[in-house]
C-alpha cells in the first residue's frame, strides 16, 4: 500500500538502486526550480547604485563580466542541484544533492570582492560544512534501521519504522545547508550585487526544505 503523502508516483526512472520518481508534489517543486534556473540563465544581472543620502551624488558599483559569469555558472549549478534534490528517490542521494546546494550557495556569494560579503560567506560556509554531519548521519541511521535507502520502499511501509532521531538529523542537516530560519543573517549576504543569482540561494533553500518535509513524513 502506497502512502499518499506527496501523491502516487506517476513516473519512475531507474538508475540501478536509485530511483528517480515524480509525484504531483515533486513535479511542482521541480518545475519551480526549473523556471528559476532558466531565469538565472537568460536574465541580465542588476546594477547596484549607491546614493548619498541628502544629496544628488550617486555612483554605480563596478562588477566585472568575469565575476558575473562565474556567479551565473554557480546559480545554474545550484538550480540543477535543487532539481536533482526534488526528484531523487534515494535518501543518501538526496543528502548529496543538498550538500551540493549548500556549496553552490557559498560559491554564489563568495565570488564578490567586498570583505563584508566574504566574511558572511565564510560563516555560512562553516554552517554548510557542519550540516553535512547530521545529514549523512541521518541517512546512515535510515539505512541501518530500515535496511534500505529507497524512498519507494519507505512508502510501501514494508520496512521497520524510522526512529525520530534519524528524521531530526535529516531535518537539522537541511536547515543548516539551506539556512532556513536564518534569513536575517542571510540578508547580509544579499548585499552582494546581482539580483537573479542571490535569489537562487533563497529559492533553493526553500525548496529543499519543502522536499525534506515530504521525506520525513514517508517513513
Amino acid at each position, binding site marked *: 500500500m502506497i502512502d499518499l503523502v506527496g501523491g502516487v508516483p506517476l513516473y519512475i526512472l531507474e538508475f540501478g538502486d536509485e530511483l528517480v520518481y515524480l509525484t504531483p508534489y515533486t513535479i511542482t517543486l521541480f518545475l519551480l526550480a526549473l523556471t528559476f534556473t532558466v531565469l538565472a540563465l537568460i536574465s541580465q544581472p542588476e546594477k547596484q547604485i549607491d546614493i548619498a543620502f541628502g544629496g544628488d551624488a550617486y555612483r554605480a558599483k563596478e562588477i566585472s563580466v568575469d565575476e558575473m559569469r562565474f556567479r551565473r555558472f554557480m546559480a545554474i549549478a545550484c538550480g540543477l542541484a535543487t532539481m536533482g534534490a526534488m526528484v531523487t528517490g534515494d535518501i543518501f542521494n538526496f543528502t548529496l544533492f543538498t550538500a551540493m546546494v549548500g556549496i553552490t550557495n557559498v560559491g554564489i556569494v563568495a565570488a564578490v570582492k567586498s570583505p563584508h560579503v566574504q*566574511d558572511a560567506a565564510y560563516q555560512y560556509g562553516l554552517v554548510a560544512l557542519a550540516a*553535512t554531519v547530521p545529514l549523512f548521519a541521518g541517512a546512515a541511521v535510515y539505512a541501518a534501521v530500515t535496511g534500505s535507502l529507497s524512498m519507494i520502499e519507505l512508502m510501501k511501509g514494508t520496512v521497520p519504522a524510522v526512529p525520530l532521531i534519524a528524521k531530526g538529523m535529516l531535518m537539522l542537516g537541511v536547515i543548516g545547508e539551506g539556512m532556513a530560519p536564518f534569513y536575517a543573517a542571510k540578508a547580509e549576504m544579499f548585499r552582494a550585487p546581482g539580483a537573479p543569482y542571490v535569489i537562487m540561494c533563497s529559492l533553493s533553500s526553500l525548496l529543499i526544505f519543502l522536499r525534506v518535509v515530504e521525506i520525513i513524513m514517508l517513513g
Partner: protein
Amino acid sequence: MWAQYSYGILVIMVAAVIAFYALARERDDLHKLLLLDLVEIVALGIIAMLGTDLAEALILPGLTVGIAELLALSQIYCTKEGIRNRPVMGLNIEVITKSDAPLILSIFLVAYGMVLSGFTGGGVAGLGLVFLFISRTYRNDLNLLEMASGISWAIWIFAFFVFMFLPQYWFVALMGAAIGILLKVTVKMSLVGTMWGKQHD
C-alpha cells in the same frame, strides 16, 4: 535490547557531543575550520557503523564532500583575511630541487596509481605530481590540466550512462569509469599542488 550497533553509536554520539560543544564555544575563525574537520569524522563514523559493503561505498562520497568544502572554505578564509603572500614556499631543499630523485619517485607513483586506477589510484598518482610540482616549482599555464579534468569528468558521465542503459557493455563502462576518475582525481590534486607556494600572476 542493547545490541553491538547501539554501543557503537553511543560512543560516536558522545564524541559528537564533545566536538559540537567545542565548536559552539570556539570564537576564532581558523580554529572553527579545524574543529569542523574533526566533526566530519563523526559523520563517517556513523556511516561506518552500518558495517556492510554499502557503508564503505557511502563513506567515499561523504569523505569527498567534506574535503571539497574544506578546500573551498580555506581558500575563502585566505581571501577574507587578506593572506596574499603565504609564507609556504616550495621545498627549498637542494637535493630535491637539483637531483633526479623527485622525478623518479613521481614517475613511480604515477605508474603505480595507473595500475590501481579509480579513486585510490588518482590519489597516489596525484601525490606523485604534487611532489614533483612543489619540488620544482613549475609555473606553466594550467589550461591543459583543466581541460584534462573536464574531459575525464565527461568520460565518467559517459561510463555512468553505459552502466545504466547498456548494461551488456559493463566492461567498457568499468574501464571508462576507472580511467575517468583516475584522471579527475590526479588532475585535481596536482592543481592543488601548483596552488601551493608562490602566487603566480
